């Protein structure tokens, strides 16, 4: 069960519409390293994670990613809600507009629809935590790239916040990986899979 709070994790108040920025930022909603994939990745992996502290971390980071998904969607919404048709055409938002108007829909910047294949739930604690650490770094790179492409401070503040969270999550997943290893055979970490071999 989740309990909804009527607030964003970090405030978003964007004054100027900007379709070109929305077009690239939407990738962090439905793209390969976006927040939708992040939340589904951790919330899927947690069921078979045999250590309660690590399952707790997956639950808590997965929950925070839902709040990030809401933040990215709010950024896209505020960047596109007051656009004119002329601006939509001029800023290259027409290809998105024809299918979705200004409705928020999960896709990558290049137009590829969200695909569950962009995240893994492999059922192996070592494999999944390495996936999670890599995912946080890939999301951090994507935010770095967005920061290169956008210059509105109203947009950069929440994007900078989200980028920093990727680094914190990477750190916590690294600590979780060490905790998992404590339970394994130190001569051969791959001797058994704690999620399957009981």
């Amino acid at each position, binding site marked *: 069960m989740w309990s909804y*709070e009527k*607030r964003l994790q*970090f405030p978003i108040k964007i004054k100027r519409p900007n379709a070109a920025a929305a077009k690239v930022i939407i990738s962090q909603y439905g793209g390969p390293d976006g927040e939708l994939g992040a939340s589904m990745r951790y919330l899927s992996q947690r069921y078979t994670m045999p250590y309660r502290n690590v399952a707790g971390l997956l639950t808590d980071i997965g929950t925070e990613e839902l709040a990030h998904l*809401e933040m990215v969607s709010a950024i896209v919404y505020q960047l596109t809600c007051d656009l004119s048709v002329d601006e939509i055409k001029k800023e290259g938002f027409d290809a998105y507009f024809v299918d979705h108007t200004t409705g928020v829909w999960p896709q990558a910047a290049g137009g590829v629809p969200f695909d569950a294949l962009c995240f893994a739930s492999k059922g192996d604690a070592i494999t999944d935590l390495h996936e999670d650490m890599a995912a946080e770094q890939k999301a951090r790179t994507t935010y770095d790239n967005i920061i290169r492409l956008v210059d509105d401070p109203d947009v950069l503040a929440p994007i900078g916040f989200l980028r920093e969270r990727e680094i914190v999550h990477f750190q916590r997943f690294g*600590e*979780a990986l060490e*905790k998992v290893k404590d339970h394994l055979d130190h001569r051969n970490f791959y001797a058994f899979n704690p999620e399957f071999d009981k």
Partner: protein
Amino acid sequence: MNEANSLFDSIVKVSFAMDEIRLFLDTHPQDEEALSAYDKLRGQREALVRRYTESCGPINFYDAGGSCEWNWVQQPWPWEKEA
């Protein structure tokens, strides 16, 4: 900044501090400094949320209600520019 805005701003800040410490405690469950900070923030947050809910309306849906009109859907949603 009016009182409602400053109350809301404090809730966002205190909640985020708790979000950060919660993840830290998941991997450092016996860290006394973090445990005591989380405990202190939880008390602050409860008081702030109670004050905000009484004067401006519910933040959490379990706190929604109303004597003659449902107050959950009256305030702006968080993604609105007016929020």
